[in-house]
């Protein structure tokens, strides 16, 4: 059976990390192209070294590549322009920007739901890191408000992400609400320049609707979810057991549940501190693998 051709659009941190993940575990996929806008970029040089066809013609090259699956790791604005053109070519677009044209997908929550679409959105690294935790809590308690603080090492945050902080924050907040299944979602990114670089850390505050919470039930649900995420990102973990912090909130004095998460990456491209790359590129690999399997079924 012939393999499913896939292309990566965008040769920055995310595109390059994804390239290594596909090369390590191609399964039914054949990486036929890595396209960017700068022939001298580190990402395209590494693709050439790995023997992959490259182009600095960006979307134009992708449209002509014959790829059935395209990973778009450019920027929200670029993806908005690219999406209709890829759809016209009947290419399945996995959007790794916060453009949010297609439905939000977080593999362990709703990974199988949207494979009939032409475009799915992976939201952001912060969303991929936090929504499994938020969903794990909201399936055992009603959540009024969920807030994510996502801190990443400055060295792992490329120019595309920096120019998209507005979309990052807005789209991640919306996805926390919709996929995390809470009444209001909020996402606050932090870029930290510490040396040595910090691992990606994610803190989630959950305000319950009720005045009391069953911490044991939440902990059990979260631990189960952690195992699901570890299937594709082994370095995904809680740094402490879930705790309750009593705080004054707009909903009154509440037992706020605090979840503290850290992600150590596989170090495929950037060193292991860049777990923010892994959490979204490994999710993209999973979605693509499921779609490719479906094509061959």
């Amino acid at each position: 059976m012939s393999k499913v051709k896939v292309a990566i659009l965008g040769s920055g941190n995310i595109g390059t990390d994804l390239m290594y993940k596909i090369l390590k575990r191609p399964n039914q996929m054949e990486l036929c192209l890595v396209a960017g806008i700068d022939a001298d970029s580190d990402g395209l040089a590494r693709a050439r070294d790995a023997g992959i066809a490259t182009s600095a013609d960006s979307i134009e090259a992708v449209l002509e590549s014959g790829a059935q699956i395209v990973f778009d790791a450019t920027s929200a604005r670029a993806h908005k322009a690219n999406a209709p053109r890829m759809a016209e070519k009947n290419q399945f677009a996995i959007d790794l920007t916060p453009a949010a044209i297609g439905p939000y997908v977080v593999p362990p929550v709703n990974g199988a739901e949207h494979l009939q679409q032409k475009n799915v959105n992976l939201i952001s690294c912060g969303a991929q890191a936090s929504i499994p935790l938020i969903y794990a809590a909201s399936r055992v308690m009603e959540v009024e408000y969920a807030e994510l603080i996502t801190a990443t090492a400055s060295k792992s945050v490329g120019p595309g992400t920096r120019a998209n902080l507005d979309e990052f924050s807005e789209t991640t907040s919306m996805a926390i609400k919709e996929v995390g299944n809470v009444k209001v979602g909020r996402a606050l990114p932090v870029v930290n320049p510490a040396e040595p670089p910090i691992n990606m850390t994610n803190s989630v505050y959950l305000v319950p609707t009720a005045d009391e919470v069953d911490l044991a039930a939440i902990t059990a649900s979260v631990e189960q979810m952690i195992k699901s995420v570890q299937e594709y990102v082994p370095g995904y973990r809680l740094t402490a057991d879930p705790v309750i912090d009593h705080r004054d909130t707009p909903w009154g004095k509440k037992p706020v549940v605090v979840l503290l998460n850290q992600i150590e990456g596989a170090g495929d491209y950037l060193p292991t501190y860049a777990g923010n790359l892994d959490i979204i590129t490994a999710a993209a690999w999973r979605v693509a693998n499921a779609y490719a399997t479906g094509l061959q079924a």
Partner: protein
Amino acid sequence: MTLIMPRLTDTTLRDGSHAVGHNFSKETIANVVAALDNAGVPVIEASHGAGVGGSSMQHGFSAVDEMELFAIARENAKNAKLAALLAPGIGNIRHMKAARDAGLDIIRIVTHCTEADCSQQHMEAAKELGLETVGFLMMSHTQPADVLASEALKMESYGCDCVYVVDSCGAMLPGEVTTKVKALQNVLTTAQVGFHAHNNLGVSIANSLAAIELGVDQIDTSLRGLGAGAGNTPTEVLLAVLNKMNVETGIDMFACAEAAEQHVSGLYQVAIDEAALVMGYAGVYSSFLRHAKHVAEEYGVSSKELLLELGRRQTVAGQEDWIISVAMDIKKARGDASAA
């Protein structure tokens, strides 16, 4: 040498928001803005301490909705320009647009001092909205002058009208202020230079004077020093000092002193207490103060230990959530098995 008075931005109602747990009443907002406006203060900053959109679990929820705050401030500022802070990712472009529509003149966009490129999107959006822009290089004590200068140049290239050296932690001394302000003045060609002090080491007035002696274009103060950590340069004290130096400030010092006494002194007593001193000494972000005190109490650890460790871990603004992790680690290291 005759000193030129920089444009003064009073940030009582923005930086001071941290000190009062983002709890300003509508009455305080109206009174303070009216008093500052009457005293001739040219720019008044009013927003959540973490800027527009800052009302959150991490940064504290605002007692008064920010749109209401802007409306009250606008109504009471007859001559003064109104400013608000924006931290990209906390404040979004829609927040900035709403603030502009409510009558804000100036948006002050803040990033950590090594991450100026995180401000480009918002700087450019601000210009499209017709706002005057200020760029804030937070925690300027952490980087050498040449790094600050190159980050300032980035902000200038995005169309920023004035770049500030920001001593967020009150960790700088006058000589360092001189070096760093000068470095910005040497490289910037279109943007002005400003300075924002905190008083954790008791040198906010001295630091502000060092900047003014270099001819800095903009300076920040707050009534009674109300601000995060040990507070900011007190507006009325700086004015008194400048009066003594025969600097024409254009602002009524006595009116500011009266406003501080009447409207601010009862809200919170700004002091260089042990925790605030440790923050200045260890270079920990000033808005951590109240959060650290809360967590210290909840977990039974000392604020001092917490703050020193947060300094060692090189935390930056917006990482208040790490306070809990550090408290847990301290307890764990102590072999304290009881969970908080």
